[in-house]
């Protein structure tokens, strides 16, 4: 398959290909997010009841995201794209700190650190891709307004080990949840925009 057979006239990655890659990447990021959550949960959270505290919500709770199939299908695709973009941006900062703060956890295994670094890198890569997709799909100006500030760094640096681990648990629980949302919404968008809801 020659790339750009007719020279660089309209030589670009197609929207379908952009979505294919975005879905594959979001799937990989969620796979890693589940792995790092499970690994942390097994090693540091057994029997400590962190789940009960995790229900205080995530730093992205302020973003009203679809919570069932109907909502996901009724929302306009530009709004859903903007939401995905906003969620990815909102995770940029916490992921940078997660990758550095994980090293402060007692006997943190190498795999925990590697996954945190890999998730941070791939999240940035997916953000780049989503900005490209939004640029292609959006008719109006790309709104930068969707963003949810994360103020969790101090809790990751607490002296009290239990509180610190609970903060990590909450962050990883939210990462697993939000990366799953992003993966799900991208599949819905791809089926809608590329396959006319006939995936």
């Amino acid at each position, binding site marked *: 398959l020659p790339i750009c057979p007719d020279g660089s006239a309209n030589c670009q990655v197609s929207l379908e290909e952009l979505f294919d890659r975005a879905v594959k990447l979001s799937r990989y990021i969620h796979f890693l997010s589940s792995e790092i959550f499970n690994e942390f949960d097994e090693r540091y959270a057994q029997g400590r009841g962190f789940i009960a505290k995790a229900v205080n919500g995530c730093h992205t709770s302020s973003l009203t995201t679809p919570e*069932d199939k109907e909502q996901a*299908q009724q929302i306009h695709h530009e709004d859903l794209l903007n939401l995905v973009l906003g969620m990815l941006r909102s995770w940029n900062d916490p992921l940078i700190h997660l990758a550095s703060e994980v090293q402060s956890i007692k006997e943190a295994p190498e795999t925990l650190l590697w996954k945190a670094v890999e998730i941070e890198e791939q999240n940035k890569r997916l953000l780049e891709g989503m900005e490209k997709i939004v640029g292609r799909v959006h008719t109006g100006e790309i709104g930068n307004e969707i963003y949810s500030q994360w103020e969790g760094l101090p809790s990751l640096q607490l002296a009290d080990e239990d509180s610190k681990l609970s903060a990590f648990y909450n962050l990883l629980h939210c990462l697993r949840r939000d990366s799953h949302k992003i993966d799900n919404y991208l599949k819905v968008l791809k089926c809608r925009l590329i396959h006319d809801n006939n*995936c």
Partner: protein
Amino acid sequence: SPPEKPTIIKCRSPEKETFTCWWKPGSDGGYPTNHTLLYSKEGEEKIYECPDYKTAGPNSCYFDKKHTSFWTIYNITVKATNEMGSNVSDPHYVDVTYIVQPDPPVNVTLELKKSVNRKPYLVLTWSPPPLADVRSGWLTLEYELRLKPEEGEEWETIFVGQQTQCKMFSLNPGKKYIVQIHCKPDHHGSWSEWSPEMYIQIPTDFRVKD
């Protein structure tokens, strides 16, 4: 005496749109006992009662689409009450995203074919369970098939990802094989039951020639 506290056994969603929970009553303390399922949702103080005790049969609560939200933690308890008092189960935390167990795949077909260079192979095709809406992208299923010679002991399982067909080359000539398929949501949830057993007789000339 007051009834023993019930135990919530399982919650399951078959198609990532609705879900059901089941509980097991404790002893009724010798008096007629009734059960009430109560739940609250993450980030809300409000306590709700089970919307439908009927649809999924005894000792169950069915949450239809309107009452089912994803990526949010339900805190569910069941209260047993008789005239002597009541007792409440331990809380059961559920995020419906992680309890999806689909029904088995359907329309499974097996067909022996010969490739261009006369090499025989087996083609399996199947469809997602009818309840599962995979077209909209809301639910994505992965499949795994297993097969073994009829009198064999050991199943061989093969993961085939999101495809709904598979070509099998290395099969034992002259053997009769049993084939089954099951499916699972692409990230979380559990495998469906296996599809009913299907049989295929591999002809003796199903040999890989020199």
